[in-house]
């Protein structure tokens, strides 16, 4: 057994774990943060995507011990003070989910796309950047719409103020 400490969704956590423990297992089993899912065992489906130090990674292919001192954000940490993140809101508004299983990874991947590519995303960019996330329900049509809208909304913090001024 070994000890690991990291920050998860803004909270300092420490766990005594078997070195084999993957980040996703640490999140789901030790911290009971079950929003992060496991959909495959070959690092492809992206249901397990979380952010580590601000970057999207596959938590099924990372050992928890490798993340000593890291800052991890999961789907549970995206909404702040009970108000939904704009990307979460966009997924609901645009029906970007059906069974909901891929959704946490999909939303975390979507926020990462915006972090990397900004707020004006065209369809092709979104589709290419979703390469690491598989959805079996939606055919992606509404996920793509949701991400475009969510990206715009994420950039829109200044917008309501400007609209108010006008």
């Amino acid at each position: 057994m070994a000890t690991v400490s990291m920050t998860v969704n803004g909270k300092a956590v420490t766990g005594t774990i078997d070195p084999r423990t993957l980040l996703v297992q640490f999140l789901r089993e030790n911290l009971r943060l079950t929003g992060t899912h496991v959909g495959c065992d070959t690092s492809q489906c992206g249901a397990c995507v979380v952010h580590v130090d601000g970057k999207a990674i596959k938590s099924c292919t990372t050992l928890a011990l490798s993340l000593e001192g890291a800052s991890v954000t999961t789907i549970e940490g995206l909404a702040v003070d009970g108000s939904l993140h704009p990307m979460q809101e966009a997924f609901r508004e645009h029906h970007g989910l059906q069974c909901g299983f891929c959704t946490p990874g999909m939303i975390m991947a979507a926020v990462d796309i915006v972090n990397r590519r900004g707020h004006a995303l065209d369809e092709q960019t979104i589709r290419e950047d979703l390469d690491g996330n598989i959805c079996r329900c939606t055919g992606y049509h509404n996920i793509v719409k949701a991400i475009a809208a969510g990206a715009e909304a994420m950039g829109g913090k200044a917008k309501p103020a400007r609209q108010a001024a006008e």
Partner: protein
Amino acid sequence: MSATGIGASVRRKEDHRFITGQGRYTDDINRPGQAHAYFLRSPHAHATINTIDTKAAAKMPGVLGIFTGDDLTADKVGGLICGWMIHNKDGSPMRAGAHPALAQGKVRYVGDHVCVIVAETLAQARDASEAIVVDYSVLPAVVDTASAAKAKTVVHAEAPDNTVFNWHLGNKDETEKAFKAAKHVTKLDIVNNRLVPNPMEPRAAVGDYDQGEGAFTLYTTSQNPHVARLVLSAFIGIAPENKLRVIAPDVGGGFGSKIFIYAEETVCVWVAKKVGRPVKWTSDRSEAFLSDAHGRDHVTHAELATDAEGKITGLRVKTTANLGAYLSTFSSSVPTYLYAPLLSGSYDIPAIYAEVDAVYTNTAPVDAYRGAGRPEATFVVERLVEVAARELGKDPAKFRMQNYIKKFPHQTPVIMMYDAGNYGAAMKKALEIIDYKGVGKRKRDSARNGKLRGIGFSSYIEACGIAPSAAVGSLGAGVGLWESAEVRVNPIGTVEVLTGSHSHGQGHETTFAQLVSDRLGIPIENVSIVHGDTDKVQMGMGTYGSRSGAVGMSAIFRAVDKVIAKGKKVAAYVLEADEADIDFADGHFKVKGTDKALDFGSCALQAYVAHKFNGQDLEPGLKEGAFYDPTNFTFPAGVHICELEIDPATGVTHIERWAAVDDFGNVINPMIVEGQVHGGIAQGVGQALLEGAKYNSDGQLVTASFMDYCMPRAGDLPSFDVGMTVTPCPSNPLGIKGCGEAGAIAAPPAVINAITDALGHEDIAMPATPQAVWRAAQKSLKRMAAE
């Protein structure tokens, strides 16, 4: 229409928990003291088990128990069942071998369950599995669908020629006559490729046993927890129904694959009692590939007869269907009654004859996967019709319209009585959406860029909303296919709706609430949908075959009728009026011709306080239930058109446009319905271009992970243009037909028809991978150059 009523695109009530990571799936559930199960699976496709030595493994750290097929026998736990009896042409029953949950003397496919190890942790269970010594005598494997009946190896002694049944439907003599008289006959050999359903949530089960109560609880990834309980109780014999609770919480997609009662959940609930601990099993994706029921896998020869005017006069089909190593829960119905009755398509075909041989092979069981039989039928019909139009030099859209059924009801020669439809309207709308007139120019533009452009049609019909119990009973089903609902009105007017349907992505918590809120005139927030727990919902038949709307919601509709009727009685007392003078509208019970009214919430309260009426004359309370048995299947239909471009240098196919016009009858929530269409098309495109499960000749699954089995990704698909036409269904009170499978049924022939159009009619098999398309393109370019 109100903002949340029938016909409104209400945002989904269930989404909040999913987008915040608060969904509760089976693997999220952990019971106190929970142990973990690991299944030792056969590495061989076909072998006799001589011995299983578990002695060393049993002593390993953390091991609580190792159980084999012998333990099942000792505990009188029965085998898994197939719930649909098919009869051979000569009237004799199908020949089915036993299907034990853990192998008994033989393994019949790679992934077959040899034994289960229960340990404190999953790692310990897996470690112990490696210490188990199984002595196998490996036998030759039967793998190929087309030749299985001629193989020397026998999968089950009960079926000596590996043939489970040879079945037929239609009128052989009439069909022979039609072909003799035909001006032209179109012939095709078709392989409907084998698919792995792959819902993103792998299957999982947690079995729990309460020693005090002598009762079991099974949490499982099921589309139909009540059917699971029925089978586990009545056939497998785990426990009587009153001592077995099955809970299917949030389920991450099913597409058919979670209908069935599998070995793993059976074993989990059984061993929970044996080890005296809750036992969890969660499939990893590799296990899912091996052991989830697969879909499709047909080999077919089909012929279409036409007369001098281009009228279709006959269709004959000979299909071999691979059912895998064991008969899964509904496997026998898929290539028979869910397949051949759809062979008339949208067309007026006077004579049809279909023969289906179903074979055992040493591959995973094959059962229903999104569409189940209907995609296979549609592929046969729509490929034949497309090729016939080309051979006859007719425009494929016009040829279809010429042969459409135009009068309803229409009795086909293969059981079905189509109740309503307007296929021409869908075709016209789809042609407009795709800009059919502009396709010639677009093809020329593509050619200038060195690309090949093609357009392909699919004018599908399906039978869903399954189905009248008496009808399916007469066809061999072991169960009735009604649905149940209970509407519980609380004293202040909020409502719980209990349904036997199960939602695993379809949005029932929203659509069902829309219906109830609309009809009772109460806010949608005041309606909760309860499903997926046999302790809460008394009985139900579950969700598959696009039946939850047409059947499940009709049951709710009927229960709401009863609530309103009872409410009228209560209101009559409260408003001191004659019951016959009470109207219910907009959430109010009103006395005709007066301004006296009672809102729904107040009526509910009055029903429970029971102050205004004599409890002997009228029972207090407001709670009503209904079982709804439909009068017919429903017949959604529509036209999908795919336009795509092929790069002949690489064989890469890029879908440029997709027009889908579907007739689902009345629609409750268009946003959700369109979402179902998108998802269905994606799976259909997956079948046509990307997906195909392949076994090698030893029976090893070579496409056993997402590394080799190609799942459609966002970049593989376009956005879709979805339109609708509405011909209300006359067979249920809501006039709805069902939308869950349409896309998966419609899409494959549209894609393949488009590819073969682009390739100048060069035929191609599914999946049309870049390599296959490149090779076909080389042939077709050579031929075109020669011409």
